[in-house]
C-alpha cells in the first residue's frame, strides 16, 4: 500500500508542477501533445537494435522538464515505477539473440543485449516525455487539448474520469489499509482471507464513492462531455511544433551521434 501512496503522491506532485508551469506560461497544450506524440513515434520507429541514434531524442523531454521545472527526483521516481515492466519486456532478449553484433573495446556484445538496451532507452524516452508533458500541462488541460484535437470524446473523457477516480480509489485503499494495520497486531502482512475482504470492501466503497463524485459533477451541470475552454494557438506554438518535428525528422534520417563523433574526430585530427 505504501507503493500506492507513493504513486499517488507522485501524481499529486506532478499536478503541482503543472500548475506552476502553466502560471509561468507554456506553449499551447495541443502543440505540446503533438510534439510529445511525434517524439514517441520517432523513438518507436527505429530499428530494434538501434542504441546511439536514440540518444538525441532525450533532448525533447529534457527541454520540457527544464521549462516546467520538473524536479529530477520525480523523473527518477516515475522511471523506477515503470522499470519492472520494462525489464520484464526486455530481459529475455539477451537469452534469445546470442549472435555477436559488435565488439565494444574488444568485448563481444550480442544482438540481444543491444535490443535490451534499445528497449530501455525507448522506454526512458517515452516515459520521461509523457511525464514532462503532464508536468507541463496537467491532466485536465491535456484532456481538453485532446478534445480540441478531435480525439473521440469517449477516450479523453475516460482518461479524465480515470484520473479523477484514481485518487478516490487510492485514498479509499490507503484508509482501509491504515485501519487494518492499526488492528493487525503482530501480523504486518494481511492473510489471503483478509486480502479478499479488503478488496471486496474496496470495490463496494469505490463504487459508492464514484457515485458521489458523479452526482457532484451532475449537480454542476455535467452532461457527459468535458468542459472544453477555448485555447489560443499562436505563431510561437507553430514554431515550437515545426521546430521539434524537424528535429525528430533529422534524428530519424541522420545518425546524429555518429555524425557528431565523426565531426569531433575530424576536428581533433
Amino acid at each position, binding site marked *: 500500500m505504501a507503493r500506492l501512496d507513493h504513486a499517488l503522491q507522485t501524481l499529486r506532485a506532478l499536478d503541482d508542477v503543472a500548475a506552476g508551469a502553466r502560471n509561468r506560461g507554456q506553449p499551447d497544450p495541443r502543440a505540446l501533445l503533438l510534439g510529445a506524440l511525434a517524439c514517441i513515434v520517432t523513438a518507436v520507429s527505429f530499428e530494434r537494435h538501434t542504441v546511439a541514434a536514440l540518444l538525441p531524442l532525450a533532448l525533447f523531454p529534457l527541454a520540457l522538464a527544464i521549462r516546467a521545472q520538473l524536479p529530477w527526483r520525480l523523473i527518477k521516481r516515475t522511471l523506477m515505477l515503470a522499470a519492472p515492466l520494462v525489464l520484464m519486456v526486455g530481459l529475455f532478449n539477451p537469452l534469445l539473440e546470442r549472435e555477436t553484433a559488435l565488439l565494444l573495446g574488444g568485448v563481444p556484445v550480442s544482438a540481444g543485449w543491444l535490443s535490451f538496451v534499445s528497449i530501455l532507452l525507448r522506454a526512458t524516452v517515452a516515459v520521461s516525455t509523457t511525464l514532462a508533458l503532464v508536468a507541463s500541462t*496537467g491532466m485536465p488541460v491535456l484532456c481538453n487539448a485532446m478534445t480540441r484535437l478531435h480525439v473521440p470524446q469517449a477516450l479523453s473523457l475516460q482518461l479524465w474520469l480515470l484520473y479523477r477516480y484514481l485518487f478516490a480509489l487510492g485514498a479509499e485503499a490507503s484508509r482501509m489499509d491504515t485501519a487494518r494495520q492499526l488492528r493487525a497486531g503482530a501480523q504486518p502482512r494481511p492473510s489471503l482471507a483478509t486480502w479478499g475482504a479488503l478488496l471486496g470492501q474496496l470495490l463496494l466503497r469505490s463504487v459508492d464513492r464514484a457515485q*458521489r463524485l458523479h452526482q457532484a459533477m451532475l449537480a454542476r*451541470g455535467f452532461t457527459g462531455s468535458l468542459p472544453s475552454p477555448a485555447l489560443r494557438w499562436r505563431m510561437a506554438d507553430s514554431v515550437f511544433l515545426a521546430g521539434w518535428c524537424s528535429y525528430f525528422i533529422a534524428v530519424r534520417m541522420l545518425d546524429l551521434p555518429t555524425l557528431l563523433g565523426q565531426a569531433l574526430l575530424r576536428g581533433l585530427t
Partner: protein
Amino acid sequence: MNAGAVRLKGLRFDYPDGTPALRGVDLHISPGEGVAVIGANGAGKSTLLLQLNGLLLPTAGQVAIDELQVSRTTLAAIRQRVGYVFQDADDQLFMPSVEEDVAFGPRNQGLPPAEVQQRVQAALQQVGALHLATRAPWRLSGGEKRAVAIAGVLAMRPQVLVLDEPSAGLDPAARRRLIHLLQACVQTRVMATHDLDLVLDTCQRVVVMHQGAVQADGPAQQVLADAPLLARCGLEPPLSLSVRETSR
C-alpha cells in the same frame, strides 16, 4: 429574489432494494426562505435533498422548482436553478486549481469565457476565498475546501441552494464564517444538518424528518424548543437553547 420556490407533493422514494426512504412528503418552501431539514441518521434527510435537483427521481409524487417539475427531461434546467453543496467537499473539488474548479459549473452552462471569469471572481469574493484562486484544491484546509465548494455552486447563480451537512468537520472559526456566508445568501436555502445551533443562526424554519416522513414543520425557535418532539425523533435541543433555558 422572487424565484426559487420549492414544492414537494406526495413525494415517495424507495431504494432499489425496496427500502422506503421517503413516505409521502408534502412541503412548500417560499423563495428566499432558509429551511433546515433535521432528523436522526436514516430519517431521509439526504434522500430528500437529492430529489431537489434530480440526483434521485421520485418513485411517486412530484418535486417542482417554481413552475418547473423535476423529471428526466428537465434535469438540465433544474440543475441551473438548484445548486447542491455536498457533505464531503472532496467529492466536489477535482479540477487542478480553485478557479478552474469554480469555473466548472459555469462552463457547463455554456457561458462565454469573460462571463465565466467574472462569475468565478464574484463567487470566490463572496465566500472570502479570492486569495485561494490559484491554489490546488487538495492543498486547502477543511474550511477553505467547504468555502470553495460553495463558491463552485454560487458561480452557477442558482435560485435554490441545497446544502448537505454544511458544518461537518469545520473548526469554530470556519463554522462562524460559514454562518455569516449563509446569512448573507439571498437564495432559497435548504440544508440537512445535525448542527442545530447552526440552524438557529441561519434558518427561519425547521422541518423534522422521522422514518421518511415529516414529523414537524414550523419556526426554528419553536420546533427546536420542543424537547419531547425532538426526543421522539432521536434528537436533542440545541446546546444554545438548553443553556438559555438553564440560565433562566
